C-alpha cells in the first residue's frame, strides 16, 4: 500500500541528487517546506522535531517523472480506470505529471470536456494535463475548438487510437494548432496496410497463423506526418514509435525541423515478437510488438536522442477484454507501475545507457514536448520529486498494480530499479 503524509517540512537526507535540468549530480539534501523546494545543498541540518527526515542513502533523488501518453478511460469506461485510480498507478510508478488521451466515451473534443477533466483532477495527487481530440467525435471531419480548449487546459491534440487517414485533414490540424503553438500527436498507422493485423507481420505471425501488421503501416504514415509538419513548419509529436524505419525517418526529419519529437513505450523496448509464441493477449498492443531488429533500433534511437522520451501508453482493459483469443482481445497494456523497473533494466543495465540520460527521457524531455516547466528543483518551485533505488531487483506482481486493471505482461518478470518515495502536490508518499 502507498502511505501518505503531509508534514509541513520534509528533509530528504544523503540521496544522490540528479537534477536533469541543471545537469548537476551530487550527494546531498533537499528540504521541502509547505510543498515547495526550500533548499538543496550538500548538507542541510535540522533539529526541528516537526521536520520529517527521510534517509535516502543509496537512493537517487530526482524530478518527478512525466508520462505524456496514458489512457485513464474517464468518462465512459470507469470500470477499466478512472482519473483517481490512474493517478495512484502513476504515483506508484514515480510519475507526478501525466497527459491523458482523449479517446474516452464521449471523447474529449470540446472546451467543456477539457474543463470537466481538469475540474475532476484538481484534488488528485498528481497533475493531469488533458490532451484534446483533433476532430469532433474523432471522425477526422471537423476540427475541434482547439483555441478554446487550450484556454481551458488542453496541452496537445490527438485522435489517438484512431489514426488520421485523410492527409488534407491532418495538414489542416497541424496548421490550426500552429496558431496556439501546441503539438498534434497522430497515431501513425495506415489502416489499409494494417488491415486486420493483430501482431507484427513476419515469420512469427506466419508461424502462429495470426494476421500480420507490417512495419510499413507505421512508417508510411510517419513519413507523411513528418513531411506535412516540415512543410507547414508545425509542431508534430510521434507517439509509440515501433519500427526501425520510423526511427530512420525521424532522424532525417529532425535534422530539418526543430518542431518534431517522438516517444517510445517501455514494452517496445523490452519485448519482441518472439515473445508472442504463447499467445499472451497482454502482449497484444497497437502498434504491435515488433521484431528483434526493430527493438534493437528503438534502443539505439532512445540512447542517441533521436527519440526524445519514454511514454507508457498505459492502456487498462478488463479481464473480460483480455481473457479471450488473441484475435478477439483488445489492444493495449497497462504500464505505469512497471515503467521504471523495465526501462532501467533494458536501457541502463543491459544496454549501457547512463542513468542520467534515462532520467532525462522520463523528466525534462517529455515536459519539453508538452511545454511544461522543466526546472523543477528551482527554489520556491512546487516540489515534484521521485526517489528510487536504481539497483533493487524485484519481481513485478499483481500486488504492485494500483490500476483498476491488471493487463500487464510484466507480471512475473524480474525488473531492476524501484521507486521508493514520491513527493507530489504537497504530499509525501512511501511505496
Amino acid at each position: 500500500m502507498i502511505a501518505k503524509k503531509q508534514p509541513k517540512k520534509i528533509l530528504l537526507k544523503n540521496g544522490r541528487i540528479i537534477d536533469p535540468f541543471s545537469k548537476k549530480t551530487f550527494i546531498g539534501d533537499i528540504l521541502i517546506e509547505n510543498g515547495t523546494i526550500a533548499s538543496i545543498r550538500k548538507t542541510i541540518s535540522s533539529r526541528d522535531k516537526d521536520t520529517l527526515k527521510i534517509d535516502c542513502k543509496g537512493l537517487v533523488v530526482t524530478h518527478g517523472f512525466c508520462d505524456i501518453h496514458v489512457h485513464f478511460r474517464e468518462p465512459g469506461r470507469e470500470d477499466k480506470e478512472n482519473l483517481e485510480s490512474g493517478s495512484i498507478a502513476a504515483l506508484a510508478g514515480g510519475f507526478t505529471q501525466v497527459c491523458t488521451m482523449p479517446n474516452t466515451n464521449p471523447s474529449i473534443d470540446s472546451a467543456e470536456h477539457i474543463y470537466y477533466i481538469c475540474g475532476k483532477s484538481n484534488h488528485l495527487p498528481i497533475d493531469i494535463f488533458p490532451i484534446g481530440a483533433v476532430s469532433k467525435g474523432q471522425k477526422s471531419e471537423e476540427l475541434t475548438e482547439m483555441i478554446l480548449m487550450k484556454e481551458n487546459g488542453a496541452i496537445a491534440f490527438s485522435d489517438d487510437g484512431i489514426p488520421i487517414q485523410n492527409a488534407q485533414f491532418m495538414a489542416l490540424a497541424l496548421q490550426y494548432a500552429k496558431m496556439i503553438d501546441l503539438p498534434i500527436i497522430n497515431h501513425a498507422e495506415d489502416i489499409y496496410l494494417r488491415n486486420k493485423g493483430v501482431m507484427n507481420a513476419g515469420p512469427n505471425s506466419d508461424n502462429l497463423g495470426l494476421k500480420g501488421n507490417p512495419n510499413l503501416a507505421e512508417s508510411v504514415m510517419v513519413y507523411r506526418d513528418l513531411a506535412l509538419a516540415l512543410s507547414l513548419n508545425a509542431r508534430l509529436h510521434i507517439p509509440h514509435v515501433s519500427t526501425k524505419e520510423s526511427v530512420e525517418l525521424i532522424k532525417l526529419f529532425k535534422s530539418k525541423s526543430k518542431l518534431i519529437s517522438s516517444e517510445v513505450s517501455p514494452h517496445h523496448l523490452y519485448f519482441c515478437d518472439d515473445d508472442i509464441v504463447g499467445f499472451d493477449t497482454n502482449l497484444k498492443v497497437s502498434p504491435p510488438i515488433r521484431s528483434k531488429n526493430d527493438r534493437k533500433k528503438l534502443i539505439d534511437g532512445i540512447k542517441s536522442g533521436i527519440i526524445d522520451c519514454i511514454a507508457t501508453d498505459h492502456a487498462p482493459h478488463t479481464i473480460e477484454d483480455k481473457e479471450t483469443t488473441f484475435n478477439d482481445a483488445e489492444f493495449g497494456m497497462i504500464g505505469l507501475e512497471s515503467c521504471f523497473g523495465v526501462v532501467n533494466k533494458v536501457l541502463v543495465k543491459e544496454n549501457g545507457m547512463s542513468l542520467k540520460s534515462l532520467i532525462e527521457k522520463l523528466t525534462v524531455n517529455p515536459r519539453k514536448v508538452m511545454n511544461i516547466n522543466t526546472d523543477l528543483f528551482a527554489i520556491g518551485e512546487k516540489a515534484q520529486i521521485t526517489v528510487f533505488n536504481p539497483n533493487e531487483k524485484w519481481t513485478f506482481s499483481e500486488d504492485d498494480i494500483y490500476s483498476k486493471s491488471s493487463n500487464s505482461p510484466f507480471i512475473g518478470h524480474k525488473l531492476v530499479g524501484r521507486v521508493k518515495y514520491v513527493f507530489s502536490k504537497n504530499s509525501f508518499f512511501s511505496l
Partner: protein
Amino acid sequence: MMLKSKHLIGLEDFPISDLNKIIDTSFKFKQILDSPGRKINLLKGKTLVNMFFENSTRTKISFALAEKRLGADSINFSATGSSVKKGETLKDTVQNIESMQIDGAIIRHSHPGAALKLTEYIDGSVINAGDGSHEHPTQAILDMVTLKEKFGKIKNLKIGIIGDILNSRVARSNIFGLKKLGAEIVVCGPSTLLPNDVTKLGINVTYNVDEVLNWCDAVIVLRIQLERMHLGRIPSKREYHRTFGLTYERVNKLKKDITIMHPGPMNRGIEIDSTIADSENAVILDQVLNGVAARMSILYLLLGDKSEKL
C-alpha cells in the same frame, strides 16, 4: 482612350496611373450622385452587357445603377434560366452576345481567370466583377475611394484585413491595389484560411486580432463563409467569433478610433457584432454609395469618349 488599359481584369498588373485616375474621378461622380439630377449622359449610345454567372446583390445593382446614371444601354444576363444550363460553353455564350454588337461586358464568374478569358472572345472592354477567389477589382477600388475620402490619402495608411484571406477575391485585389498606392497591410485570420506563402505578397501576417486593431487606421472585415466549417477549416462560429470577430468588447477597449469596413454581405454576430457594424466608425454603407461612383468612373474612363469632358 483615357486610360492606358482597355480592360479592368485585376489590380495585380493594373497601372498605378490608371488606378489613381479612377479613384480621383470617382469623387467627381460622387458629387454628381449627390446633386439633384444624379445623372450624366456620358455613355449615351454605348451598350453594355452584365453577365452574372454567379449570385450577386450589391455588385449587380451597383453596376446597373452606374450604367443608368451614365445613360448607357444595358442588358442583363444571368446564368440561371440561360443556355448555360443547357451546357453552352462560356465562349459560345459570350460570342453570341457580342455578335449583337456591344461595347463592353461586366462579368462575374465562379472560376478564376474567367474575366481574362473573356477578353480573348470579344472586342469590347471587359470589367471583372469577381472571378472566383482571384480578384474583385471594382470592390477594391471602391474600398480605396472610401479610404481616400476618409483619410485624404492612401499612402502610408495602416490597413488590417481580417478573415478568410485564402478564398477572398476582395482581399487579393485590396492587397494588390493598396500595396501599389503605398499602404501598409497586415492580414489576420485562422492559419487554415491564410495562403501558405502569404508573406511573399509583401505583407505581414498575425493570428492576433487585437494586435491588428491596435496597429491599424482602418480594418477591412471579410465575410466568413460558414461552409468552411464543414470543410474542416474552422471548428465553430463560437471560436471564430471569440478569436477573430470584431466584438463590441474588443473594439471598445481600443485606445483610438479605427475605421471599419466590410464588403458585405455580413454575418452579424460572427465576424462582426451588430453594435460595431452599426457604429459611427463603420463606413460600410458609405462603401456601397462609393461603389456606384467608382463604377461610373471605371465605365466612363474605359468606354467614354475623350471629347465628352466630365
